[in-house]
């Protein structure tokens, strides 16, 4: 199972999706194709924004560090932060924002507690470099690494409930000793205040649409 497949499994049919740090929009495109889930991506890199437009995905060029002020409370079913958490400076703030605008959040990150990372630090004595963490310490965009234990502690502090967790290594699910044997962690979380239904009723579909409905973010 891949990360993309795990996320797609967690997104309900027709759910409204916000993908933070969406890259070239391939996840949103897949969610539209497989789940008819309409959505928006947020991305800051010019090349990725262009990729999204080429992929016919709604993209908003904004800086996640500024929060999610563009989005109303509870305006999404699910807000996704895929392998971006470790590159964010104000993680608590962003996680809170995610569950302000969304009913659920999906967060994935490279597990810094993975045994290969531990060995590179503990035995080889250098910062971990791997498929999930491909950067050298001096050129990495990542500023806040964490382990499964760390992330779950933060969820506890923020009052988030963990609905599901999947840990992956080389495309295989890890169930034993996940914080040691898992390379990538995915969480589906919510907060008690996030379980209210969507406050904005969905609109009726357009009657005269000629364009591909793919980019239509209606619930």
């Amino acid at each position, binding site marked *: 199972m891949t990360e993309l497949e795990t996320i797609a499994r967690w997104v309900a049919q027709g759910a409204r999706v916000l993908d933070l740090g969406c890259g070239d929009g391939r996840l949103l495109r897949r969610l539209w194709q497989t789940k008819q889930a309409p959505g*928006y991506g947020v991305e800051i890199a*010019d090349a990725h*924004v*262009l990729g*999204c*437009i*080429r992929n*016919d995905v*709604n*993209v*908003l*060029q*904004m800086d996640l560090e500024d929060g999610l*002020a*563009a*989005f*109303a409370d509870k*305006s999404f079913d699910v807000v996704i932060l895929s392998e971006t958490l470790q590159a964010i400076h104000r993680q608590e703030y962003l996680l809170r924002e995610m569950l302000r605008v969304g009913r659920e959040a999906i967060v994935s990150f490279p597990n810094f507690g993975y045994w290969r990372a531990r060995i590179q630090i503990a035995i080889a004595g250098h910062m971990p470099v791997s498929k999930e963490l491909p950067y050298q310490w001096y050129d990495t965009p990542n500023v806040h690494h964490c382990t499964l234990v760390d992330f779950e502690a933060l969820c506890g502090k923020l009052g988030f409930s963990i609905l599901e967790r999947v840990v992956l290594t080389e495309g295989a699910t890890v169930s034993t000793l996940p914080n040691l044997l898992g390379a990538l962690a995915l969480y589906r979380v919510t907060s008690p205040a996030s379980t209210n239904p969507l406050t*904005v009723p*969905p*609109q009726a579909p*357009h009657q*005269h649409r*000629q*364009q*591909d409905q793919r*980019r*239509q*973010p*209606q*619930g």
Partner: protein
Amino acid sequence: MIVTAHRARFTEPLRLSSGAVLPEFEIAYETYGELNAARSNAVLVCHALNASHHVAGTYAGDPDNVGWWDNMVGPGKPLDTERFFVIGSNYIGSCFGSTGPASTNPATGRPWGADFPVVTVEDWVAAQARLAERLGIERFAAVMGGSLGAMQALQWALSYPERVRNSIVIAATPRLSAQNIAFNEVARQAIMTDPDFHGGHYYDRGVVPVRGLRIARMIGHITYLSDDAMMEKFGRQLRRSERGFDFGVDFEIESYLRYQGDKFSTYFDANTYLRITKALDYYDPAADFGGDLSKAFARARADFLVVSFTSDWRFSSARSREIVRALLDNRRVVSYLEIDAPQGHDAFLLEDPRYHDALRAYFGNIAL
């Protein structure tokens, strides 16, 4: 691309936002490319203050008069005229061929002058809708514009929601700030206090309020460029070998502004300048909705592309994000580009691969 300007005449009266009625009017326009059989490939390009319907190409025998958005519109350009039928439309009140203050008032047989009504963005769009009907276009694939043109692209999506599939809104604001209005008022005062203005009836007297127009243009120009761009281009460079200790042209920027002002005053009409700046000041689609832009956009049905430039302090990126927020609140299809360009407001006219590649990709996704 050799192009030809056209003029369409409309004899059915047009009721304006002010309550005044234009008994008849003309709109100057140009077209590029071919309307397809399904009539589904038409794109309307709306222009800003100092531009016209001459969007792209050149006129036969006049190779230097290149359209103002020639880097964006044409064969193989981001808005590809091999695929789209593009209309460049002038607006009423202009001095570039459409009915305006310099046109003859049918009631008097003399130029309208000060009696030409104050028009609004809504009026411009209503007049353009007549042009669309004349050209057989029921629904535009896109309406596109920058700055004041972007206001028209927005207003098209609000006035005629079913007639616009995509609204492309570049370097825009949903309403002018007090500072924006202040700059416009200084420009208007410069014109109206020029002794040659004669209350707007200067055509009969054979004079032009050149001094006022020059200053109006100089003020405008300052707001189109970023501080950095101006510093980069002119710095504190002197025009002469040393300071003159007089009030001649010392600095390059002074020379540039004077040159721009002089040039502008030879071709732009003062009464038009007053009306365009007033139309800008008045534009506020949220005004009828208690200032709530989200409510104003509830009737929009188009998909939107909103583009801003980070160094634009005239219509800053924050203003564009207000538009984006209102569209998100209404669950519109919208993409937003914030181009990190140094040039200021005028960046929308320049060729930046990030900007042009995105527009090219966006137009490429519009099904015909």
